[in-house]
């Protein structure tokens, strides 16, 4: 508030008042919420790097087979056990070259091509399982937050699932349902459906709890009352008014879900209950290479670094998203 000068005459006073009403500076275009979010997100360097790397790796595994068109399953026993090309830096006699930048494995399969193929599977499992978990979690969270009658039952059910020992049950379910699904959809397709299904069915609980909490608070707000009073149906209220308002916690738990899904898939492959042995995923490549890691440490390192970097970037992305989507932090 600035000190107002005392007007000399009534006419001047009018001018002053009108003057106060006109803008001193040219009008700025209105800022949308998402622009604010983006500006806050950009400030978090880790999150920007994380998002960039996640995009890079996703595009890399999608477009990779066109850029590097070696067949990941082609055996070339004469050229087996090549070292990655960087070994030439300190050992000029090493069996390495630009034909196989990451080397070849004990059967002469190109490791770069295998990494791309494995990354496709790992990322596909991660994205799909995360999507499934979000779908279930959001549905249960919205239903139990919005409908009082369902709340008690659904939340007890969520608590029950939360107190199940997840990793043992996952192992159990994979060993039990492998046979029937494999005979139905083939060894690879069956395993894919099974792993996506199990990870999705066992990781929706946190999303459901967070969404329910937010819906419970939103439901009492005036705009929902207004919507209800003009006769909006429950389904419309949920779709048009509630879901857009809970999108931010859903996005944050989506990143967490993606990270856990990738790690769980790799862990299952590592324990030997995942995909069949000649079907590359990052976890499988790592597990197969552990036996000979003294001679060929790069075969453990490359998939391990791929998994770790992807999960790290997803975690940083989630961290940045949480800050950017929280209006209390935004603008600080």
């Amino acid at each position, binding site marked *: 508030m600035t000190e107002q000068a005392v007007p000399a005459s009534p006419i001047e006073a009018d001018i002053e008042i009108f003057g106060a009403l006109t803008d001193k500076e040219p009008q700025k275009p209105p800022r949308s919420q998402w622009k604010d979010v983006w500006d806050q997100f950009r400030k978090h360097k*880790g999150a920007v790097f994380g998002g960039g790397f996640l995009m890079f790796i996703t595009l890399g595994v999608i477009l990779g087979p066109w850029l590097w068109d070696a067949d990941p399953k082609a055996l070339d026993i004469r050229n087996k056990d090549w070292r990655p090309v960087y070994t030439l830096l300190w050992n000029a006699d090493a069996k390495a070259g630009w034909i196989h930048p990451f080397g070849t494995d004990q059967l002469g399969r190109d490791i770069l091509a295998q990494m791309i193929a494995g990354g496709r599977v790992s990322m596909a499992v991660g994205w799909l399982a995360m999507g499934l978990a979000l779908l279930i979690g959001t549905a249960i969270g919205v239903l139990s937050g919005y409908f009082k009658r369902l709340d008690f039952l659904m939340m007890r059910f969520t*608590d*029950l699932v939360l*107190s*199940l*020992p997840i*990793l*043992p*049950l996952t*192992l*159990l*379910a994979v*060993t*039990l*349902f492998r*046979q*029937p699904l494999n005979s139905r959809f083939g060894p690879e397709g069956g395993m894919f459906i099974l792993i996506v299904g199990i990870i999705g069915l066992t990781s929706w609980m946190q999303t459901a709890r967070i969404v329910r909490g937010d819906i419970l608070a939103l439901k009492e707000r005036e705009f929902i009352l207004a919507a209800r009073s003009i006769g909006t149906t429950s389904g419309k209220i949920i779709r048009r008014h509630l879901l857009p308002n809970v999108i931010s916690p859903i996005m944050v738990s989506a990143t967490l879900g993606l*990270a856990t899904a990738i*790690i769980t898939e*790799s*862990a299952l492959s*590592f*324990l030997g*209950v995942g995909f069949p042995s000649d079907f590359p995923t990052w*976890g499988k490549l*790592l*597990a197969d290479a*552990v036996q000979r*890691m*003294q001679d060929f*440490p790069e075969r*453990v*390192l490359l998939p*391990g670094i791929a*998994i*770790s*970097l992807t*999960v*790290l970037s997803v*975690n*940083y992305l989630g*961290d940045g998203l949480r800050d950017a989507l929280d209006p209390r932090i935004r603008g600080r």
Partner: protein
Amino acid sequence: MLTFTFRRLILSIPTLLFISLVIFGLLQLAPGDPMAQVPLTVPPEVKQKMREALGLGAPWYVQYYKWLIQFFWIEPKILIDYLTNSSLLLGWLPDTSFYNGELRVISWQTRSPVMDIVIQRMPQTLWVVGLSYIVGIVIAIPIGIYSAYRHYSVFDQAGTFITMVGFSIPPFFTGPLLIVIFSVYLGWLPSIYDTTHVVTDWASFKVQFYQMIMPVMVLALQTTAQISRYMRGAMLDNLNQDYVRTARAKGLREGVVVMVHVLRNSMIPVVTVIALGMPAIFGGAIITENVFKVNGIGQLLLTALFANDLPMVMTLTFIFAILIVLFNLIADVLYGLLDPRIRYD
């Protein structure tokens, strides 16, 4: 508080029954046949008899009921007998001989009682995983306190990065990585955990110490990442509160303000998080135990799964479920006890 505890305890009974039913139902769908390893020369009618001897001929509800009786009635009797008979703690009590030869939960792999094997495997898991948990907490709490106190400092940034890395690198990568570095290239540490090793003198203690370093550190990295993050968050929440300003205003030393006032309030959520992580200690770390060949509970579960040993899998999974439910309850009660603002009644 007591009413709340009792109510939760009673409520956990149907929860556990339901969980046991879920696990049992899953196992009923198992395609494996426990007679698969019996030689083909055994005639089918003998096989059928053997199957019935394992209790497989009966309908599922009879099997479930029998398992419940065995687990909740016969096994506790054996435990009480053991306690009053040969343990140090209650050995002075008169010998109760409750158990008189009823059928216990029998493993299909070894044909010996499941609980005996669990008791055999427990010490290894408790030593390795339990110690890693303690090490993780001891490292995590100072890191959390200091990064919150020097918010956005270089230490905080580095700490956040390291905890993020700890979150992101899975144990099946850190394990082999450490083995390659410390066992293969440097040759300092053994890559396999020898559970038959007995500590008798200083030299054997050193061997034990060396072989524990890697598995404990792999697991401790995960614990540290998680707990220091919680610790930092809780400290940050408290450091800006009014009571901290009051404490400073009345002239308390900075050390007292942070280490007594703020720390005690920030420990409330952290203690409950620590309690929630406890079941994982008993559950063993399936992956890490597998990498370092520790024959603990996690490894037992994995081998039982591969060998189609359903009673073992059922009992182990159910023990994990009991621990999870129990420590959830403990965490809730602790929260109420530590924080007088929270009242459940």
